[in-house]
């Protein structure tokens, strides 16, 4: 008897250990996913009965402008901030890993603080700073750089730039930490050998650091891609997705359609397309991981 229980508890252990994850997966991922597909074929507004409308939502989505615009916005914001952010993170990381730099611990922490503090709080501060009568415009005007306030949050392109600056502010430190980790794993002897051969700081960076960091930079890029496409809080608070949909990312669109306009059916359809986009991006990420292994 004792023996039977013993075998039973050994055999079932992994299943028991994975059960909580499995239950959560079924309830919070799998069922909602199936339910989403069902809802996308209905004309449901949250309260009254759901009417089956076939492919009407899909037609609206494919022929309408909103969803494509939201994808385009994500791509534009991505192009605006990712290269700048990664360059900045790379510069920060290489300076902080150089032996001439002092107070590296302090700087590492300072640049990381924006990432660990509340997105909502920081988005609101940016709202104050970037306002047409805000501190940034006043400083620039006092310095004589501009004569008219820049409409940071009022015109489509400036709004996208402002959101991008906010994202750069929040994520540069994070990427810097990842790159620093990579740089610290490069063996010192490589640099010493380069120094003996007369390669200066810039040269050794170009010929040793960069090639070895390529994969990590690619990884950071993929992470940023996923992050950009699921961007929500920053544009939602800073620009409310406007002006004229310019900063409406897919998730902002889903939120507005489902919880403000109560077009639950249509929002589900957008969700499915959003999921397909994210899945393509995740598969890219997995391939990258595989190459790493």
């Amino acid at each position: 008897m004792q023996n039977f229980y013993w075998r039973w508890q050994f055999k079932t252990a992994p299943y028991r250990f994975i059960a909580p994850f499995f239950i959560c997966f079924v309830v919070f991922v799998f069922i909602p996913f199936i339910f989403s597909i069902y809802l996308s074929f209905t004309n449901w507004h949250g309260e009254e009965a759901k009417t089956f409308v076939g492919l009407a939502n899909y037609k609206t989505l494919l022929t309408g402008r909103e969803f494509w615009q939201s994808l385009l916005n994500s791509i534009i914001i991505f192009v605006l901030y990712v290269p700048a952010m990664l360059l900045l993170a790379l510069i920060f990381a290489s300076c902080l890993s150089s032996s001439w730099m002092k107070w590296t611990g302090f700087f590492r922490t300072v640049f990381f603080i924006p990432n660990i503090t509340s997105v909502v709080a920081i988005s609101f501060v940016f709202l104050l700073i970037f306002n047409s009568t805000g501190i940034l415009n006043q400083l620039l005007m006092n310095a004589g750089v501009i004569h008219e306030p820049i409409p940071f949050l009022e015109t489509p392109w400036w709004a996208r730039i402002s959101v991008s600056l906010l994202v750069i502010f929040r994520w540069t430190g994070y990427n810097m930490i990842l790159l620093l980790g990579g740089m610290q794993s490069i063996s010192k002897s490589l640099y010493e050998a380069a120094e003996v051969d007369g390669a200066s700081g810039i040269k050794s960076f170009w010929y040793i650091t960069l090639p070895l960091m390529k994969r990590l930079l690619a990884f950071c890029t993929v992470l940023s891609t996923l992050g950009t496409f699921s961007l929500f809080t920053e544009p939602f608070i800073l620009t409310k997705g406007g002006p004229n949909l310019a900063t409406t990312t897919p998730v902002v669109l889903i939120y507005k359609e489902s919880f403000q306009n109560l077009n639950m059916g249509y929002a589900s359809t957008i969700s499915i397309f959003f999921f397909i986009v994210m899945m393509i991006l995740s598969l890219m990420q997995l391939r990258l991981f595989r190459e790493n292994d």
Partner: protein
Amino acid sequence: MRKQHKTLSIVMLLVFLALAAVFMFPFVWMLSSSLKDKSQIFASPPVWIPHTFHWENFTQLFTERHFGAVILNSLFTAVTGTVGALFFCSLAGFAFAKYRFRGKGLLFGLVLASLMIPMESSLVPLFVIYRELGLIDQLWGVILPRLTSAFGIFYMRQYCMSIENELLEAARMDGCSENRIYFRIVAPILIPAFASLGIIFFVEEWNNFLWPTVILRSEDHLTIAVAIRALQSGVRTPYNLIMSGSVISVLPMLAVIFIFQKQIFAGLTDGTVKG
């Protein structure tokens, strides 16, 4: 050569101090604005240091906006969510790392799948399910979807790989049940991993906004990020209150980073650079 290094090092330090000032400016502005009168927020010329400190911006949040409850709610969701997630992720991670069993590949595939299905794409159905289960406006509702995370399972699996099989076998020889092995042997070994991952989870939960804002309704049930956003209503938004709320939300996180910077940075690089 030496001299060159010295000047370069000083120049770099100065440049970085300037950069640090730029990165810290929004926080300085947040603090300054949190002590202003509403009329001074967009004042021209800008008010750097308010003449009189309007501490009532802070007290008002507690007396009129339930911020006492809000802070407790945020702590509750962050602590409970973190502890639960660490427990469930480490259990699953341990199972994937150290057991051979039928269906392992399939179950691991589900972990990958959950990594690929972002929560944002199931907002609507989740909301409906929540309404059916009566979880709307409940703090438990905020915590539940975050109890397991694919990232957490990966992280813990990676960490469990390093545990010696002999150690587990020896414990079995001594008559330890599998549950006991987890609690007595695996969990103590995982303490550093719990620390790194726990801080990441805690910070994420404290700052979490999208899902709480979807389900929380009553003023005294909100978590801090949602409560700050809820101040933005009416025609004339009290940005000074929003800033004082923001200061309250930022302070604990500053404490977290100054106390736990080692674990935080280790947690980030472990998961990516080596993984």
